[in-house]
């Protein structure tokens, strides 16, 4: 068995035992049971596997586990705090910004990442930063609305 690699996931330290070059996505899903992060393409093209690495949205299918060691990782499972949804999750829920919802985890994480660096994005900026996320069901307009709504509610919570 390979040497354990320590990951810091959703504020918790967890060791994985897979090959260091295993994609982070596989380690999360198959070793740690964090299946909220989805596989959609494995080539960095669809965004379904998006997580936050040191706060920035990254495609977990493109990151070897070894490169993620000792850096804080946030997955969809880590956004809810004490039973309270993250404002982006709440906004997706309130806007019904999904159909089959398979893209939703990736969309939410990408949006959380965006709002960290740009708390008041324009629609054009949202489009720009979600360009790498595919929604095959065509829920794009509602997703854009949800991100605007989340920006507003984060501001209100902050006040």
């Amino acid at each position, binding site marked *: 068995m390979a040497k354990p690699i320590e990951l810091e996931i959703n504020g918790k330290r967890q060791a994985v035992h*897979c*090959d260091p070059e*295993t994609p982070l996505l*596989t380690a999360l*899903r*198959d*070793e740690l*049971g*964090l*299946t*909220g*992060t*989805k*596989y*959609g*393409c*494995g*080539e960095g*093209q*669809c965004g*379904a596997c998006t997580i936050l690495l040191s706060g920035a949205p990254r495609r977990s299918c493109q990151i070897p586990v070894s490169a993620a060691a000792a850096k804080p990782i946030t*997955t*969809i*499972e880590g*956004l*809810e705090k004490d039973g309270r*949804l993250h404002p982006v*999750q*709440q906004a*997706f*829920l309130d806007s*019904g910004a*999904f*159909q*089959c*919802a*398979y*893209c*939703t*985890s990736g969309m*939410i994480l990408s949006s959380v990442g965006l709002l960290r660096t740009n708390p008041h994005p324009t629609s054009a900026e*949202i*489009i*720009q930063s*979600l*360009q*790498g*996320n*595919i*929604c*095959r*069901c*065509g*829920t*794009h*307009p*509602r997703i*854009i609305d949800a991100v605007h709504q989340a920006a507003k509610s984060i501001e209100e919570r902050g006040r």
Partner: protein
Amino acid sequence: MSGSSIKFQPEPERYEFTAAPMHRFELPRRDFFKFLGAGIAVFAVARDTLAAQETAPTQGFHQEELPKDITAWLHIGEDGNVTAFTGKVEIGQNIRTSLAQTVADELHLPFESVTMVTADTALTPFDFGTVGSRSMPTMSPQLRRAAAAARDLLVGAAAKEWNVAAEGLTTADGKVTDPATGRSLRYADLARGKTLAQNLPAEDPVTPPDQWTIAGKSIPKKDARAFVTGKHQYTPDLRRPGQLYGKVLRPPSFGATLTSYDAKAALAMSGVIVVRDGDFIGAAAGNERDASRALETIQTEWKEVSHTSSKELFSYLKKNATVKSDDRSRKTTGSVEDGFAAAAHRLDATYTVAFIAHAPLEPRAAVAEWSDGKLTVWTGSQRPFAVRDELASVFHVSESDVRVIVPDTGSAYGGKHTGDAALEAARLARAAGRPVQVVWTREEEFTWAYFRPAGVMEIKSGIAADGALTAWEFHNYNSGMSAIDTPYVVPNQHIQFHSTQCPLRSGSYRGLAATANFFARESHMDELAHAAQIDPLEFRLKNLSDSRLRAVFDAAAKSFGWSHKKTQEGQGFGIAGGLEKGGYVATCAEVSVDHTSGAVRVVRMTTAFECGAIVNPDGLRNQVIGANIQGLGGALFEFIEFENGRITNPRFSRYRVPRFRDVPEIEAVLLDRKDLPSAGAGETPIMAVAPAIGNAIFQATGTRLRGLPMVPNGLNTAQSGVPSTS
């Protein structure tokens, strides 16, 4: 029912289904109460009239033999909660929510008290599949009648309890009330201690749409929280105790057969199970990587067969057309020759559509588990009962020993009618003696799934000097018969479908052949309008008597501002519409074309849609807008390239799907016809998108694009339809 001037016999859509096993459903009534506990159960039986409307599958039985079986049931538990069972599948079309609304509405219960159990062959009644937009028109009224019958039972039970007449008792909010005395009993009290089962009376009166209270409202998706928290488990997310991960070794090309095989190295690897069964080769291991590595060590040789390529596609389809066609695939009224002779303008044109992929974001996947010779499979399929039968036949076990469960699925769009991953997982699991999960890679999904069939449509038409259609001759090669009829009034028509050899595995797609037939017909109507120098909307209305179709054309045009003058260089408006599967649609599109770069941008679209009484307006809007966005991909740039039996663009980096930047401003205008039964909505709203955009491009540029996709590389290099027709 429909306004078209001629109608085909209900002709099976060639690509609607891939297989048609049909078995009678046996009702395990005793098990039912054992499973759910005591209470009141009502079983819905399909009525002949409803059954007859179902599209018949291609082989195996005739309409009159459709089973008059149980199609849904519901159960009122001792806690007053209601569970409704249907074999339908939730694939993002929101069926779980809209069917629960229907039940709650008719039973006079809060929405939250209703749970839907879907798509589990051990628990839900037989269902043909979540196909052809049939869930709302068939399942919804059946559940509604079951709910009405359950309400009658409850009222009857209360009447007995109070020793009063049932008439005059009322129901609301999960209670039966006697207005005379003011006393009431909760459903829970009435169901307690009972094991009462009833088949549905044939004609139970149900609540008309204008009196709906819960149906007809925008109620949020059931269990939505599980989706925004990542807790919902799609098939690839299931983890059975001790499960292995399976991989399949794919042949180098379609139709290749195995000639030599050496798996010594793989068999020597510890913790890996290797299976070879005929041409099937697969491996399962504790993780995907080990399974893949094992497969990489296997030495194989294959005999390949020759194939056509996407470059020759359209000539291939025409060359290989079957000469004989049966009466069900052609229809003539009047004489097209007379119609051509009477025409002031004549027009002949050929249109093409390429193969495209569904590419649902959740790839095909399954988990299979054998225990004591019985098989349980979880898989994302639109046809769980067909998959069950497929598994039973492939593994030579009885259907009652196979259970297929479909978790709410990461979409399908007609692409998940088969059980491919289920068979693979089950084969590996049987060898491993442990549960095995198989999740297809995106590349496998693009290669080994099936496609929307490509097609060639030839139209010859004639119009009189005043613009009235005099002749309409329509030939479709390969793509299928959905919406092949013209909704316009034409005295002389010949319409024919030609089957051909199809070079790629093809199957159902959102709207089936209607996307192809709408594109050809509505593009051609636009060409005729320009030839006659009549406004394209006016030209359509002039030739149209169907009032429901006229209504959606008017609604789309009005909301879009069809009559407004264009204000910018490179701007173009287009319109298209039609009817299919009980839904009426019209789309207006505005495009903007950059004449220097040739870039085409769809700026906005307005789609008016009418599908009878609306059950959930917000859910419907979501579906309509989604269909418009998906339609944009097939209209502008999606197509499958193939050569030598291989798909050469099997990746999202090579196969372009609509992304945020491609999405225009989209307006959905929903016409609510409370006087008409609800039709399905998942498919029809996609159909007018491509021709509306093509017609807009023509208006902006004078270039007529007759092939889908229209502008995979922008207009200047537009090679309409991509493969060449010559």
